[in-house]
């Protein structure tokens, strides 16, 4: 019992979990939670959660991606155009997801197989994606079927659909994390040359993390389209940076190999809740950005100090196995 409790406390997601609970209490005390608030909260933060899951997987594999926000904008525009042009709805979803995975594959190829620094490579693809988004849909617009929007903003047994999809994506990330591939991702994140010598195909593993992120972003983009009821080529610019910040607060080490997607999602929910809290506290509108930034900075410092003692168990296992060889 004590052992399993320690396991939870030492999990990299624990500090952000505590921080999140604290903010939920503060927020609840200030404005109270209605069910419409909860649904609205998850529908509007859905895209950020999705991008954060993708970013977390990439960072754990030792990479970074600044293009995911632009990718969300691109898929948002493509999906809107497909629906506008009278495509079958299911087909439009499938094609959009395939295109988002292809975008991820582009990043994965340049970073994984051509070994370009991920920061710069994805900066390049950021331009590529936002340029394409502007070409596909030069001005914000489009309409979404009412049924689709109602479905996305609906609930099943009181739980918002958006939250259910986030949980499903988290489960998917968890399954990958627990699979042999997940072990390889962490190994590559911890030390790529050593993993290579141990027979891990580093290129392919890196490639996979980017394709996975592409898929998750595609899901996020479709949710975003439902939320906005149309497309906007400039919609996702802030998403990738917010996602990276969410990952860091959520205990995903930027050096790679440490953390999990759950903590990262907690981080992004904290991010969203922070904005609500600052608004609910009736801060003058011009100061909201600065207060949000300062809380974020303090949160990051607190998380960094708290996380010093924690190591992900998988990383520890890998290290121990390496030491025994």
């Amino acid at each position, binding site marked *: 019992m004590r052992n399993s409790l320690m396991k939870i406390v030492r999990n990299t997601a624990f500090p952000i979990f505590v921080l999140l609970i604290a903010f939920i209490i503060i927020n609840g005390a200030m404005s109270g939670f209605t069910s419409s608030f909860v649904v609205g909260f998850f529908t509007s933060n859905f895209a950020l959660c999705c991008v954060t899951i993708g970013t977390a997987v990439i960072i754990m594999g030792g990479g*970074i991606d*600044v293009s995911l926000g632009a990718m969300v904008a691109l898929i948002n525009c493509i999906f809107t155009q497909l629906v506008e042009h009278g495509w079958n709805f299911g087909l439009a979803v499938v094609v959009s997801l395939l295109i988002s995975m292809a975008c991820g594959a582009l990043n994965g190829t*340049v970073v994984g197989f*051509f*070994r*370009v*620094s991920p*920061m*710069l*490579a994805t*900066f*390049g*693809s*950021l*331009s*590529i*994606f*936002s*340029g*394409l*988004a*502007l*070409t*596909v849909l*030069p001005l914000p617009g489009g309409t979404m079927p009412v049924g689709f929007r109602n479905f996305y903003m609906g609930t099943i047994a009181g739980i918002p659909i958006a939250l259910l999809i986030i949980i499903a994506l988290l489960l998917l990330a968890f399954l990958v994390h627990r699979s042999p591939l997940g072990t390889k991702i962490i190994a590559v994140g911890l030390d*790529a*040359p050593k993993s*290579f010598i141990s027979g891990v195909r*580093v290129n392919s593993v890196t490639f996979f993390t980017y394709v996975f992120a592409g898929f998750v972003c595609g899901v996020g983009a479709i949710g975003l389209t439902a939320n906005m009821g149309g497309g906007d*080529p400039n919609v996702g610019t802030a998403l990738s*940076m917010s996602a*990276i*910040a969410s990952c*860091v607060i959520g205990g995903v*080490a*930027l*050096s790679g190999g440490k953390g999990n997607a759950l903590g990262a999602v907690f981080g992004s929910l904290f991010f969203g809740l922070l904005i609500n809290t600052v608004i609910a506290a009736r801060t003058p509108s*011009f*100061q*909201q*950005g*600065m*207060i*949000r*930034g*300062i809380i*974020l*900075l303090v949160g*990051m*410092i607190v998380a*960094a*100090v708290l996380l*010093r003692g924690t190591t992900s168990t998988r990383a520890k296992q890998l290290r121990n196995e390496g030491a025994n060889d």
Partner: protein
Amino acid sequence: MITNNESILSNTNPVKKASGIERYKSYLPAAIIIVVLFVLGQILSPGFASARNVSNIFAQASILALVAISQSLVIFVGEFGIDLSVGAIMSMSAMLMPFYTQGQASALPMAIFMVVLIGGLAGFINGTGVQIIKIPALAITLVMATVVDGFTLAFTKGLPSKALPEVLKTVGQPLFGQVRTCIIIAVVIIVIFQLVLSYSRYGKSVFLLGSNRNAAKLTGLRVNSTVIIAFTIAGMMAAFAGVIMVGYVGSSNLRMGDSYTLMSVAAVVIGGAKLSGGSGTLLGAALGSIVLILLTSVLIAAGLSTGIRTFLQGLILVMILLFNSRAPKLRV
């Protein structure tokens, strides 16, 4: 420890200068791209390579080059240092210049002093966070960007302004011939910084720290203060670049520095520096800046729509990186 020894051997030692052509080899890709782009621009729209247009391009590149100095320092000092707050700091100083000067030339020195001070403070917090609290540079500078953006909004209420002293607006005017003042300012500052980096005790320790942090620590270099100073100077230089930018453009708005953040990183890398630190020059960063600005100008000259232009810009950048800065193969 084996890996450390390897990295000593594989890093080019910046203190010992390579001789002859070897020394200038890292500038070659950037120089070739510049020539190609000028020829391409002249073909696409005659008059592109005219003295006036070239001076225009160099003036814009000089602003990017000034931010690239910030970014260079942080990248040279190593451990994958990067500063994503430079764009926000530039916007901050651009917004605060009209606020402090109200169009009065006499208030100019004080205003520049204030924005450079605030930029330095932001850089100092970045450096302290990286070195003392051990937060990755990428993360803390990213959050610092939101703090600085928020500060600017809170301080200026986000209103665009044109209340700048006329003296400041002359940075975009020719001083003699087609040579504009901002180009001269950039050249002078780059030369000063390059001399400091190459010959001073501080500059040498920056490169040594970037080459091998552990070895630098063991030989007794002051790691903490060197890194914090690098970040602080980076913040100050970004603020100064913002001053030149607002003078060149003639009016300020909240988001005008944003695009410079990642462009400055790209400029430094195209100029031959490694993101892992320990190598690179400011001349390289300046060439990289010219490449990026020239690329945009050529695409504008080609008369393409914004979407296609952004797309091609990204595509060409990826191509340049494919040629220029690939990590060595894992198979030895």
